[in-house]
């Protein structure tokens, strides 16, 4: 067994690390929120409350696996698995470090975007299959929000693709050895960041599951492990978006040689994870129609202008 790209060892290790990271985020988020909100957060189970995740997992695994009698069983079970699968699949193209990854794909970015589109099905199906009015409202909102924000997400990335001349994420990282794309593509970065929050539907854009409005939205009827999958799926999405920002705009594993590349990658990704958690603590939630019009009337034109300007600059340099 070797550590080359696509070997069994690296696939297994990446899968394990990614899932454990996502699960640990449950604790990280609660502690960070506690820190920012003048309170303690979970600190009872184990040192610093670290074993809280284990306790939560035991609870979630041993809960009754209940499906409401009025739900559509097949899609009800399918929905949470979709989100887990598509996000884990997306991780396969992420270049964590030189020589560390699952596949070295020439269409890496397209693959991630395709998987993100499939992710919308999870939320829609979950809400529809529940046969609950709150869940229905949640999945309606989710469908509109995720489908719209995918558009800007895709367009915002095209500037990076044009600069690097490749859809391959690994080559994009290598192309940033001379300088991170966040500087020439700052507008693209901001749009991608906003679209990323919308895609992972976290506060302030947690409109599909806005607790104060529609209880828990699309996962109102879920409990036990199926809820757990939605829950961990959300954190996986958070890790994914943070990894993508790192790869696309912040030079991926690149950094001074005093630390190994994987550490640079992890540190940058964690910085953005913490940033997303801080956003959750700080900003109120816009209304659903406000989010839509903001996207279509502001972000879309902006991302198109960004693409045009980038293209023009590249052409002039040639």
């Amino acid at each position: 067994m070797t550590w080359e790209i696509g070997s069994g060892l690296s696939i297994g290790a990446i899968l394990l690390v990614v899932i454990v990271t996502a699960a640990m985020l449950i604790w990280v988020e609660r502690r960070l929120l506690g820190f920012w909100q003048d309170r303690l957060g979970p600190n009872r189970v184990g040192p610093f409350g670290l074993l809280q995740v284990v306790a939560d997992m035991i609870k979630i695994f041993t809960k009754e696996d209940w499906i409401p009698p009025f739900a559509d069983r097949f899609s009800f079970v399918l929905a949470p698995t979709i989100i887990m699968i598509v996000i884990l699949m997306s991780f396969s193209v992420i270049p964590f470090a030189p020589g560390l990854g699952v596949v070295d794909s020439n269409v890496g970015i397209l693959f991630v975007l395709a998987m993100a589109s499939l992710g919308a099905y999870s939320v829609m199906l979950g809400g529809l299959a529940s046969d609950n009015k709150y869940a229905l409202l949640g999945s309606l909102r989710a469908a509109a929000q995720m489908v719209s924000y995918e558009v800007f997400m895709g367009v915002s990335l095209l500037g990076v693709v044009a600069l690097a001349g490749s859809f391959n994420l690994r080559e994009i990282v290598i192309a940033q050895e001379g300088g991170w794309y966040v500087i020439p593509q700052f507008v693209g970065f901001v749009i991608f960041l906003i679209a990323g929050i919308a895609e992972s539907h976290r506060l302030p854009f947690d409109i599909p599951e806005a607790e104060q409005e529609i209880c828990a939205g699309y996962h109102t009827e879920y409990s036990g492990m199926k809820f757990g999958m939605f829950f961990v799926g959300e954190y996986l999405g958070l890790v994914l978006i943070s990894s993508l920002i790192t790869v696309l705009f912040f030079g991926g594993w690149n950094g001074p040689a005093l630390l190994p590349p994987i550490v640079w990658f992890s540190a940058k990704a964690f910085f953005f994870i913490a940033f997303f958690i801080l956003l959750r603590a700080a900003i109120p939630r816009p209304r659903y129609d406000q989010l839509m019009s903001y996207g279509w009337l502001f972000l879309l034109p902006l991302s198109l202008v960004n693409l045009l300007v980038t293209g023009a600059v590249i052409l002039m340099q040639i």
Partner: protein
Amino acid sequence: MLAAEHIRENTVRGDVPAAAQAALELLRKEFAGDILAEQANCDFIPTLWFDRAKVKSVLNCLRKNSFAGNRFEMLFDLTAIDERARVHRDGQPLSEFTVMYQLMSFSGNCDFRIKVPLFDADLILPTVSDFWSNANWYEREVWDMFGIRFDGHPNLYRLVLPPTWEGHALRKEHPARATEMEPFSLSDAQTDVEQEALKFKPEEWGMQRKSDESEFMFLNLGPNHPSVHGAFRIAVQLDGEILVDAVPDIGYHHRGAEKMGERQSWHTFIPYTDRIDYLGGVMNNLPYVMAVEKMAGIQVPERVKVIRIMLSEMFRICSHLLFYGTFAQDVGQLSPIFYMFVERERIFNIIESICGARMHPGWFRIGGVAQDLPAGWEKRVRELLDFMPARLDEYDSMVLNNGILKRRTQGIGSYTTEEAFDWGVTGAGLRATGYEWDYRKQRPYSGYENFEFDIPIAENGDCYDRCAVRVEEMRQSLRIIKQCVDNMPSGDYKSSHPLTTPPRKEKSMKDIETLINHFLSVSWGPVIPPTEVSMAVEATKGINGYYLVSDGNTTSYRTRIRTPSFAHLQMIPAISRGFMVSDLIAIIASIDFVMADVDR
């Protein structure tokens, strides 16, 4: 003394304001032969009795005309009294049930009462829900509690008690406690009846299932929903996410506080008042003890007044802080509530060191307060005054100046001053429409006239303005507390009046008369002379009033609690139609109600 003479004498003394006097004279002229009686009460509010055939035209006359340039803008309260067991009714017409309308003039700063005698065999009178929008719920409540029907009412269903309830709870023959009833049991047949009664039929709620263009979705918001602030239910009629209608359903928090008032002694009812607006703490005691003191003729010492004001204002800040935090939370801002709880906790610590309890101290007494202030109280209160202003400024930049929050709340759920009067809206909800009226300023009680403070107002009457007014009120409350600390009078913490409960102990050991008084008022409770009184304060959520009827006994004959939240909730459909579900949540959050204050 004849009642009319009594009132005339008060007029000479200047106790009846000009507007009320003008109204009295007009009614005496217009309805000369129809006035059944003029009742005298110790609160000097003109009270006229009319037959039910005349009551509508009398109320219309009061509503339409202006008196000395002022109008009676609001139906402040509408309730009933079961008179069948009452002994002291001198000068009042024969009556088994009495319906009471209390009108309020904001411009003329006075009240007016109309009473209608009814008999058990024929409990019906015309509705006034076409005059005032807020009469709708008040009349439903009277039907629910007394079985008095209102002819022409659009939907005279039970409001507070469940539709399957038997009897009318505030009638004297209705048992007050569970031990007076059969043990509770629920047979299968009865279960089916109850289940059937719970079924949601849109038609019964006055809603259509579909329109020409679309079929509506009915969403049941509550009684358990994350942002309805307690057990409160709204049946929402949706077209997509747009609200076609929203019908509130209350009663899930009903504890029969008014019925308890007829059972507890005057003294032992005080802790119950704490739990009416459970965020208002001792401020709830204030209108009650002031009403009893007025009936008993007790003058409280200056120190008592200032202590009462200081604690009331602390509770106002606590309540507003909780409102502020939950308001931000309901529009999706997670953190402010946690910061605000820190301040609230610090204030509760001060309250605890003074009263010995935090949220519900029940600390005011008839004729005073429970204890004197503890040694060193100024230090802790001054600490509060030092740290609060900076924190409030910080919250302004965090919440009120936040762009997303502004876009979520500005222009949402707005109403005008006229609409506010029509729906019985008081407090910050009224001031947010730009109408400067505060009970503490316009009708100073407990010595508020000696304090310097401003009445914050806003312009648009929308969700944002209601929040902004309350935020500024906290700053004004701090000003008042500062003046309390700087100028706390010395003196007694209890009046030496014989009806002060419990009486001051030190004198009772010296002479037999005070010992007897002490013994009676501690064992029986004080005996309050027969009269009626209405007393209100500017509570945390609006005007909270107590209308007490004493029959010369150790308990109240009728305890009517007029709460602000009750009126405010009724307005939700009118201000939320056409908005989205998210806006409804913002509207609910901006009203600042607690269900205990609605259902009582």
